[in-house]
């Protein structure tokens, strides 16, 4: 490989790690303020009880659970997409895999937080973990919430591993070349030396993980959907929910990945690395998912409408023509009507076009979660109990805090670690096809000077 090119890549990709501008601190301060306010709101809620939210009977869940599903969905950005691209050996994946995997790990730190916030007695959350206690009490594995605990734990550990493994050579690189935070990189690089054996084992481990993480990711959103589908409630008790949620998750994941790419491109000056072709390709993926999402949505709603069961139709009408109609039609507009044409034409599938479409999809998918959770709960089977729901300032503040927290963590991540894999990018250069044969053993012998 060209030495100069390697040096340039190294410089470009580690620049965001090394150079810290005023914008960085201002961003962190702004996000930190929102987070502090949200933290105060959460404290307020724990102190007074969940009554400070807009929940009531029968709407026992609301914005919090909608956010839980939304963030777990976002977490499908990374690992799943990057795993699929790796397994299919798509060459254009190189600049976006780590960016996506980081989204996964960070979103997985946000999502389960909402379950904690949603608990009536948050301080007892550890009762859902299986551990021996003097009471001899264990959690109930029949509960879909325990399935979630198990699957999300697995997914979090799996995606952390999957983020970490390809990062080791870059951590070693930073350990050896940066003047700052060396202790961090030395600890995390674990003594990586770059011997052929290590490289080979790394590639094996990454490919094993890529295969493992796909079924794990699918299982996570499957069990998230089963929280709803396992109940008898109208328009929750649906067999389509598991694949519908998985598709929605990948859909919103790709959208947030596009947004992250677009922001990073500008803020970290990575125009040379995140090129229009990447936006084009990810945009096409987004288009495909938009169509699949539409198909699932139609399948879900048309069967309900045709079946015309009174309990289900109550929810159906509330969503499509009742107070939730703005949310529902907003979702349709944001998930399909606007982004699909934008993504379908080459002329609009530009960086700006895909970014705008992605932003809409993120909003649309949040609306979808909200409509699913609230729509059904407002209309339980016994009509005497029907009631509306509106979130209060506490819920909205905590939700804003979660978004700020995610952005905060992401900014911090890009500050600490190169967001584009340096070694993978170098390995992807055309001149750098690594020679595969065993060194020393198979090369021809030239006459040697004595």
């Amino acid at each position, binding site marked *: 490989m060209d030495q100069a090119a390697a040096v340039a890549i190294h410089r470009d990709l580690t620049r965001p790690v090394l150079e810290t501008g005023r914008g960085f601190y201002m961003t962190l301060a702004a996000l930190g303020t929102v987070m502090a306010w949200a933290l105060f709101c959460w404290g307020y809620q724990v102190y007074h009880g969940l009554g400070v939210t807009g929940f009531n009977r029968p709407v026992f869940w609301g914005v919090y659970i909608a956010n839980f599903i939304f963030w777990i969905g976002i977490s499908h950005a990374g690992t799943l997409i990057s795993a699929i691209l790796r397994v299919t050996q798509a060459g254009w994946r190189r600049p976006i895999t780590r960016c996506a995997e980081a989204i996964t790990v960070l979103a997985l730190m946000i999502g389960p937080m909402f379950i904690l916030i949603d608990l009536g007695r948050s301080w007892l959350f550890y009762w859902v973990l299986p551990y021996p*206690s*003097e009471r*001899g009490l264990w959690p109930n594995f029949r509960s879909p919430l325990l399935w979630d605990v198990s699957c999300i734990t697995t997914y979090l550990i799996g995606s952390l591993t999957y983020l970490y493994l390809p990062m080791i050579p870059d951590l070693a690189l930073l350990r050896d070349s940066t003047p700052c935070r060396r202790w961090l990189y030395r600890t995390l690089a674990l003594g990586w030396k770059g011997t052929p054996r290590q490289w080979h084992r790394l590639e094996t481990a990454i490919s094993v993980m890529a295969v493992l993480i796909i079924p794990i990711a699918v299982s996570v959103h499957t069990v998230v959907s089963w929280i709803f589908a396992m109940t008898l409630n109208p328009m929750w008790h649906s067999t389509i929910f598991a694949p519908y949620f998985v598709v929605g998750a990948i859909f919103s994941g790709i959208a947030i990945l596009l947004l992250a790419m677009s922001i990073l491109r500008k803020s970290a000056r990575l125009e040379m690395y995140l090129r229009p072709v990447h936006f084009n390709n990810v945009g096409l993926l987004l288009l495909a998912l938009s169509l699949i999402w539409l198909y699932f949505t139609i399948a879900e709603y048309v069967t309900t409408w045709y079946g015309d069961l009174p309990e289900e139709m109550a929810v159906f009408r509330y969503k499509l023509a009742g107070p939730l109609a703005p949310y529902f039609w907003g979702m349709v507009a944001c998930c399909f009507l606007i982004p699909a044409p934008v993504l379908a034409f080459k002329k609009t599938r530009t960086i700006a076009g895909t970014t705008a479409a992605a932003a809409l999809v993120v909003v649309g998918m949040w609306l979808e979660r909200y409509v699913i959770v609230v729509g059904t709960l407002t209309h339980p089977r016994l009509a005497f109990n029907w009631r509306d729901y509106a979130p209060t300032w506490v819920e909205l503040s905590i939700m804003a805090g979660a978004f700020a927290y995610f952005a905060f963590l992401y900014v911090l991540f890009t500050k600490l670690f190169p967001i584009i894999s340096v070694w993978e990018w170098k390995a992807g250069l055309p001149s750098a096809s690594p020679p595969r044969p065993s060194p020393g053993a198979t090369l021809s012998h030239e006459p040697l000077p004595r």
Partner: protein
Amino acid sequence: MTRARRHLMYGWMTALATLGSVAVWHSRGKPLEQPIAFSHRVHVVQNKIDCAYCHEHFRRYAVAGTPSVELCVTCHSGLRTSNSEAKKLFTFWEKRHEIPWVRLHQLPDHVVFTHKRHVRAGIACETCHGTIGQSDSFVREVDHSMGKCVDCHEQRGASIECWTCHK
């Protein structure tokens, strides 16, 4: 292992041991101050008075009950005691005032417990109350932890269904 590392480890071990002993000491509890320095030992061991004589409700009710000042006086009026503590009893008696005994055991609100059922099942007082009958002081000896209850219920084949004990 480096020197610093070893020191750090010793530090951790000391901290853990300290924490552990503090926890043990704390759970043993301190003796309670009562309005009269009453001694169970004098009554139960020396004078061979049955628990039921003073804690008279335990066969029939949920609570065992503390004796009324009247009950104390029944015996003590016949005794020529020069004990200063026993004299305090008569000041309460003369004022027709119950002795404000400090309660030793208080189960949480969510627990159902009746002395009656346990006594009728043949459980001796000492099984839970330990050696308080031989003691001069008031130490909280009863283990109120759920594990203790469940273990005993399991051993004796009593119900361990949640609603047996929780309300």
